């Protein structure tokens, strides 16, 4: 019999403020242990938290981004609550979070999984502080505590259980990750823990009651998210089919063994005894503030995608690829701009030319080299300049590709510390290597005349209806120009001569 997998995600996104959510200590990553943990962060007696405006503003931006820029999902009055539990990396004995009145309620994220669009509803997003770090290496049988991370602002984004496969969960996490980076509220650095997911997984008979869920904690890569959900769902199905029962629990994913393991029973752990934090007054978000945040917001991914489809007649697929992250869209628009002569208006062919180059050359290379989204080994000016020369017929597309690859290699040789090539280098290479394409029709005609004489057989075949023979003649003409003939010009002149 069939089983349906039901998944909801809770994502912790570290907000990109320079200081902590309730103190003026720095949030910079990688500092020496406990040098960025002030009195508030280590919970000295008598200290009081003061809310960071930057953290609240980022939460508002998120709320607007997942609600079509309408602010009706942003709570005008939200409240901080204490979540009580004991752990050494939480010196206060409680985490300041939001419970009954989170800053954002509702909204949605649209994903593409298995080639279909799907809307994942969001339950809420709330502000909270991160805990410190426990280091369980050997300190004479003791645990070392670093509180630099304590008090770092987090936005916990909770989805509805709307996902039905590990692929959908990964697509959601990737879309959310790109959106947070896009609107500039989270750096998305997963190695540094800026974006971590907890997955609630249960299985049921299609259409039946929801099954008991188990929560997989702290998944910090998309690959682990996929593997952990797949393993967990299969484990639940196997358990139920063997006549067993699922007990609500928190589990950890062990990437080495590829399995999930129960961490602790939730009965006690979940009794957090939330109550409003008497140290903090409610935050009020007025219409003016929302309007101000909205005014500072740029185009959202979905808006840019639709614009590309509308203004440039791109397919949904091309538009999606070009807007997968903020930087790629900017890069594409930069290349397009640089490929035009001053004041020139781009046409359909120009859009397509630049899009094809960015998708098939640039992104392919970026992915092959495993570079982060904003890293392009060749600048948009350089690529744009190459394409300008392709458009004007000065160089062939083949030459442009070779030069582009060479520039990319140059950057790679320097471990991508800076970009390879420049428009000036393009000009130099054209001169020193004689890369200029022969477009002069007089020169090409002379060459074609010779080719026609030398290849009478092919001419005969073409005239008797063999279209293939035409390509052979083009090949001969290209060879005669040592590969520098403008293919469009050769095609045109050859066809004219053969059919006249």
């Amino acid at each position: 019999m069939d089983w349906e997998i039901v998944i909801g995600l809770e994502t912790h996104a570290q907000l990109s403020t320079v200081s902590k959510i309730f103190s003026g200590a720095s949030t910079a990553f990688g500092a020496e242990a406990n040098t960025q943990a002030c009195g508030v962060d280590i919970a000295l007696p008598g200290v009081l938290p003061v809310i960071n405006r930057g953290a609240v503003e980022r939460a508002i931006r998120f709320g607007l981004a997942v609600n079509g820029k309408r602010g009706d999902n942003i709570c005008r009055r939200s409240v901080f609550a204490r979540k009580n539990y004991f752990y050494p990396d939480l010196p206060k004995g409680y985490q300041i979070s939001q419970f009954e009145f989170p800053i954002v309620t509702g909204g949605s994220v649209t994903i593409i999984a298995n080639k279909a669009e799907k809307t994942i509803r969001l339950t809420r997003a709330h502000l909270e502080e991160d805990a410190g770090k426990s280091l369980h290496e050997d300190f004479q049988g003791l645990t070392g505590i670093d509180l630099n991370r304590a008090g770092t602002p987090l936005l916990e984004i909770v989805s509805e259980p709307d996902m039905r496969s590990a692929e959908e969960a990964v697509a959601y996490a990737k879309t959310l990750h790109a959106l947070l980076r896009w609107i500039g509220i989270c750096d998305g650095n997963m190695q540094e823990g800026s974006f971590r997911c907890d997955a609630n997984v249960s299985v049921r008979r299609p259409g039946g009651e929801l099954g008991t869920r188990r929560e997989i904690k702290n998944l910090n890569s998309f690959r682990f998210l996929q593997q952990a959900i797949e393993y967990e769902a299969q484990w639940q199905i196997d358990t139920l089919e063997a006549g067993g029962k699922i007990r609500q629990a928190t589990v950890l994913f062990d990437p080495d063994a590829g399995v999930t393991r129960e961490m602790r029973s939730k009965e006690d752990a979940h009794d957090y005894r939330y109550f409003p934090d008497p140290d903090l007054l409610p935050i009020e978000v007025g219409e003016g503030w929302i309007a101000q945040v909205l005014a500072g917001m740029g185009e959202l991914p979905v808006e840019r995608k639709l614009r590309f489809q509308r203004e440039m007649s791109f397919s949904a697929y091309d538009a999606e690829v070009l807007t997968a992250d903020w930087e790629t869209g900017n890069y594409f628009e930069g290349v397009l701009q640089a490929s035009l002569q001053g004041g020139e208006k781009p046409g359909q062919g120009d859009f397509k030319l630049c899009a094809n180059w960015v998708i098939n050359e640039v992104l392919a290379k970026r992915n092959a080299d495993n570079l982060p989204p904003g890293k392009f080994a060749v600048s948009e000016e350089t690529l744009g300049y190459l394409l300008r020369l392709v458009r004007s017929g000065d160089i062939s597309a083949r030459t442009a590709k070779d030069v582009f690859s060479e520039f990319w290699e140059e950057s790679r040789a320097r471990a991508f510390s800076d970009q390879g090539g420049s428009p000036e280098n393009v000009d130099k290479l054209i001169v020193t290597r004689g890369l200029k394409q022969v477009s002069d029709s007089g020169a090409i005609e002379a060459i074609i005349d010779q080719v026609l004489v030398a290849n009478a057989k092919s001419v005969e075949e073409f005239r008797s209806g063999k279209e293939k023979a035409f390509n052979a003649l083009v090949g001969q003409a290209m060879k005669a120009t040592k590969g520098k003939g403008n293919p469009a010009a050769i095609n045109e002149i050859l066809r004219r001569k053969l059919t006249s």
Partner: protein
Amino acid sequence: MPLTPDEVRRVAMLARIELSEPEIATAQAQLNSIFSLIETLQATDTKGVTPMSHAGDLVARLREDRVTEIDQRDRFQSVAPQVERGLYLVPRVIE
């Protein structure tokens, strides 16, 4: 809603307070007397009253996002029971 001894044990466990049997009885009596006060409060008709989350009827003042703290680790750690390589050392806790 009087608390049972088991509920007192559970609350004590959650608060990490170790109570002996006689202490449980004392705590039970004390907590229950607090609960009777709460019951009195709950008898008040609050229909139409917006719940407050804070005794002060004010909203939070926000801080600008700026780093204002300096490193005072050495001072903070001078009173810590045990420190190594800048870390606070605590009894081992493993999930």
